[in-house]
């Protein structure tokens, strides 16, 4: 198999199958969660749960307060850097935008590649930092399961292979791009059945949390 054939297979059946698996898994998980429902609150409410729920979806992007930020500083800083890097790389690199455009038929301007490249490095380095903390910090080591390391690995690989293919390192571009897509396919397949689902479910979780508190008049 040549690099071109491998790339072609990955761009065709490979990624399509992974995407099918991914979207099916995500929809499955979301329906599983939402269909369990929440029983109607019979107490005399002090505020609108849905308004507070929507509010909390937004406010939880920031730490609760300065002291919370201080206490979990490395987790928050590395977490932010990683997520911002990941966001920029996924949504603001022109080749990726073209991919979304081919599916959703809407496009948006991308960033110059050296900028995206910088954010890739930011994401990679902060991920290494997060991994280091996970293995070296007593609390995090205690909490971590195999799934945490698996999720880390399948998220790290697309960033790394994307970086290597952009820079034409290690392997010919066709191979590296194919491996990059393969790593994304792996991520997509594993995604719905691991904690990676938080990218979708955190909105539901925050909504419920905010609604439960908001009905009691507690603003978050």
């Amino acid at each position, binding site marked *: 198999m040549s690099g*071109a054939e491998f790339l072609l297979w990955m761009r*065709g059946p490979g990624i399509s199958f992974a995407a099918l*698996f991914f979207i099916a898994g995500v929809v499955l998980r979301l329906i599983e969660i939402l269909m*369990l429902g929440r029983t109607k609150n019979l107490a005399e409410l002090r505020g609108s749960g849905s308004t507070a729920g929507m509010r909390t979806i937004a406010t939880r992007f920031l730490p609760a307060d300065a002291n919370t930020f201080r206490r979990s500083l490395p987790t928050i800083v590395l977490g932010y850097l990683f997520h911002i890097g990941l966001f920029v790389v996924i949504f603001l690199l022109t080749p990726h935008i073209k991919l979304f455009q081919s599916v959703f038929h809407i496009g948006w301007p991308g960033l110059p590649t*050296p900028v995206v490249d910088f954010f890739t490095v930011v994401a990679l380095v902060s991920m290494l930092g997060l991994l280091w903390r996970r293995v070296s910090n007593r609390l995090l080591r205690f909490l971590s399961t195999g799934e945490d390391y698996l999720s880390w690995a399948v998220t790290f690989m697309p960033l790394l292979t994307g970086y290597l293919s952009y820079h034409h390192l290690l392997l010919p571009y066709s191979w590296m791009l194919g491996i990059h897509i393969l790593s994304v396919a792996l991520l997509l397949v594993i995604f719905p059945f691991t904690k990676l689902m938080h990218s979708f479910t955190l909105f539901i979780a925050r909504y419920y949390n905010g609604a439960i508190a908001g009905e009691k008049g507690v603003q978050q």
Partner: protein
Amino acid sequence: MTAIKAESRRPADETLGEALRSHGISRRGFLKFCATTASLMALPPAMIPVVASALEKARRPSVIWLSFQECTGCTESLTRSHATTIESLIFDHISLDYHHTLQAASGTAAEAAREAAMRDNHGQYLLIVDGSIPLGNPGYSTIAGVSNLDMLRETAEGAAGIIAIGTCAAYGGLPHAAPNPTGAVSVSEIITDKPIVNVPGCPPIPVVITGVLTHFLTFGTLPELDSIGRPMAFYGQNIHDRCYRRSFYDRGLFAETFDDEGARKGWCLYKLGCKGPVTYNACATTKWNNGTSFPIESGHPCLGCSEPDFWDMGGFYRTLSMPTGHFSTALGYGVAIGAAAGLASALLGRSERDKARSAHEKVSVDDLDKGGSS
């Protein structure tokens, strides 16, 4: 190209140096050619005299050129070179014993020439192939009643080495494109026991062919190849890396259509489907038509013609990062499957919970102590 005459073969013992001089090529001009070729092949300058003396002394090798499922574009590319050059003279001074487009002989006489060359130079002649070989039905392509497959096997048997010219011979090319009705395959899929050099391109750059021949004449061996059988010296460079429009890619400036401002300003053609990033060829450095330009310079995205399956890369004008095939359909099926499975799973969970709720036994304070001492 005037001198390929199968019927008036020169004595096989005339050296290339003698032949060139008898055609009035100066030693200075010859050395210049040697230097150019050496640099193209990434040989150190010290190798120039070696190349020169090897070429001077080289005996004219016998070459058999077989054309199978092809369009003659490769031959055209070589013979329509801009001007008569030393490259063409190299061709003049190989003993091209069989080439059914160029040779004057036809029918039985032509085949007899091939058989004679094979017999006289057994184990030493060079076999050049252009075009792919159909495996579907031997009748899809025949020469003198002999199927391409049989002729290739027969001719390859006594060859010192094989040069697969053009993407069809190297990787199957256009005939191999989906759905590949003739079952076309490349030379290397049939012949596995001979050294094969792939010189892909649709067509390949002429100087690449002479470069490979020069290497063969100089060192008696075939040049260093990459993982898919291409000479590293010519196919080691990535078009995207060498593209003069690369800076526009990096700055995020793209032509969105063929007639927009970006296209007029010469911005990157990536979004218009350029395959430069996955293509390895010398176009961006050697260029075409005596160094005039190459496709991207003319405002057209690279098709990736020197790569396997370039016809099937999801369309010439489809951005490289876009998935090919039925990606959106797959997503649609995914939603449907996920919804059905999710509904089933959720209903199962709910029914378990409902069962638990209807089986609920009221817990009183007397039911809390495990010891049962209360």
